[in-house]
């Protein structure tokens, strides 16, 4: 594995199917060796973007660059890409060995060298003795590992993965997830990964791009997205969030205060850009940031509605006087709350984030 990973750049790429815009003009740069995940609900355009990278879809406008080369007009076979599909897409009439060797044979690699590289690729995905097996004899997890080996053995400039874990059960998914992460750390291939599973995105990515309606709503490292979501959609899509809506009453550089609707109280905290006094906005705080205030410490009054035991964690559903719900997550302790008890909620100001309800006006849809 020696060929250098290269960068992948979308520049003003857009695509419509008939009258339906699948992708609004967007730009995205994936650095050499970087692992970028496109995360979003179905129909958000993430797969379209991946297929444009692969060359299976030609964009209406914009251009695509791999390294320094403009590959917009090149067919998939000339792009030097490795693809991994949700359906594995292994060649059912070939053995594991022949599947992995396919790309090497296309490149006219000598038989002995092909043999050596396929063996190395099999070892890489820990399927050393499986070369002679037929695809039908493998489990789903093994098939996806073969697909990974097949895509990586050609040392592609860019690896493209389309929900590769979508067809696996939960247990296997975790396994293969860590496998992909290990392979990426080890070989540093530039990777564009598409999924609708936030856990996958968080575990593997250097950066995550949250997509909706053909746009990238926000892109950044996982912690950044989790801690500083750009809007309510991102906050709700990545991880669990408590969202209290209201009107901005005060807004300075970096912080804002909002009058929470129906609560008669103000919530302040760091804020996302693009807010102004009078705007509708949301105060976001994560369930793990919610605490119970001691007696006489103030806080937002609430009633414990439900206590859900999750094993290592407790999830507590609380009702505010306005009827809104707030979740708290904490480790089980000695003073576990009792359903029906009245409590006061508290949180640190820095754990709150005031964000716009949405990046885009909705009338475009």
């Amino acid at each position, binding site marked *: 594995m020696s060929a250098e990973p290269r960068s992948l750049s979308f520049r003003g790429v857009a695509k419509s199917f008939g009258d339906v815009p699948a992708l609004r003009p967007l730009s995205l740069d994936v650095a050499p060796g970087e692992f970028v995940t496109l995360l979003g609900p179905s129909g958000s355009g993430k797969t379209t973007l991946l297929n444009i990278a692969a060359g299976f879809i030609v964009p209406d406008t914009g251009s695509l660059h791999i390294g320094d080369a403009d590959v917009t007009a090149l067919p998939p076979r000339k792009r030097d890409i490795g*693809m991994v*599909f949700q359906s594995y*897409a292994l060649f059912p009439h070939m053995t594991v060995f022949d599947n992995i060797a*396919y790309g090497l044979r296309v490149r006219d690699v000598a038989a002995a060298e092909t043999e050596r590289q396929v063996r190395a690729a099999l070892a890489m995905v820990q399927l050393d003795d499986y070369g002679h097996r037929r695809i039908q004899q493998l489990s789903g997890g093994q098939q996806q590992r073969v697909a990974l080996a097949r*895509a990586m053995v050609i040392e592609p400039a860019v690896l493209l993965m389309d929900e590769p874990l979508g067809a696996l059960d939960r247990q296997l998914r975790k396994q293969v997830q860590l496998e992909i992460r290990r392979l990426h750390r080890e070989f540093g291939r530039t990777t564009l990964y598409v999924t609708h599973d936030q856990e996958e995105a968080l575990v593997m990515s250097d950066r995550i791009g949250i997509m909706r309606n053909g746009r990238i709503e926000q892109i950044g490292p996982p912690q950044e997205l989790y801690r500083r979501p750009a809007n309510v959609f991102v906050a709700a899509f990545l991880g669990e969030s408590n969202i209290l809506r209201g009107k901005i009453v005060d807004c300075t550089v970096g912080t804002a205060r909002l009058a929470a609707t129906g609560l008669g109280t103000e919530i302040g905290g760091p804020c996302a850009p693009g807010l102004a006094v009078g705007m509708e906005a949301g105060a976001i705080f994560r369930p793990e940031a919610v605490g119970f205030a001691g007696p006489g410490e103030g806080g937002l009054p609430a009633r414990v509605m439900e206590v859900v035991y999750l094993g290592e964690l407790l999830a507590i559903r609380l009702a505010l006087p306005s009827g809104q719900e707030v979740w708290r997550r904490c480790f089980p302790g000695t003073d576990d709350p009792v359903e029906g008890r009245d409590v006061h909620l508290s949180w640190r100001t820095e754990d709150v984030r005031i964000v716009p309800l949405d990046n885009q006006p909705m009338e475009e849809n």
Partner: protein
Amino acid sequence: MTTRTAIATNIAGSMILAFLVLPILAVVPASFNHASFIRLPPVTWSLRWYQAFLNDPEWWRALVASTRVALLATIISVTLGTAAALGLERVTARMRTALLAIVISPLIVPVIMTSIALYYVMRPLGLHGTTLGLALGHTLLAVPFVVVNVGISLRGVDPNCVRAAEGLGASPWRVFRTITLPLIVPGLAGGAAFAFVTSFDEVVVSIFLAGVQAKTLPVKLWETIRVEFTPVTAVASTILLVITLVLFVAVKAAARGLPHQDGSRVR
């Protein structure tokens, strides 16, 4: 379903099948009859009419001509039909419906009309009465079977397999040769068997287009029966039947040995 209705259904089904198949099978015992006329069941069993068939060079020539025409028609229709099926996968659904209707139309149009039309087209071209001419005529009737069979196989191929091969750097021709073609072999084999049998059994087009060079077995049968009702015709029919049967069993057996797209086997 209760046991009684199940039994009744089975009996009814068996009777319908018997009604369909038995008249065809009747030629088999008839061909082993010793008498000089066709009668069932045979009074004395004998192979004398098989001997008569084998000793008559005209029957031989007809059998060889049939085989040649059928092989040629199979090759042409499998090539054209596969190309058509591949093309049909690439057009919109509406276009596909329309084009498929045209491809299948030779099966709907009365064969006698097709035959007359073919006669008028082939005569000025000098194809009338030749092996090639007859094979082309049969191709018209055989292509729909190939298109349909290969089409079904193609729809079973994961399109991502083709994409994966393209992504790995394979040219379109290489993708076809190494991925698509091996995966549609069951459909190809089925289509080829249908094409061969369609041509081998065909009589209407053949009567119009057959000359001396291309007098096929069914045409020879037809001519013979018009003149004399000899048990040799039962022999020829049995041979047609056996070849058809053997071919289909062989294709089914071959297809069962091939792994299919999803890892299951073709039934």
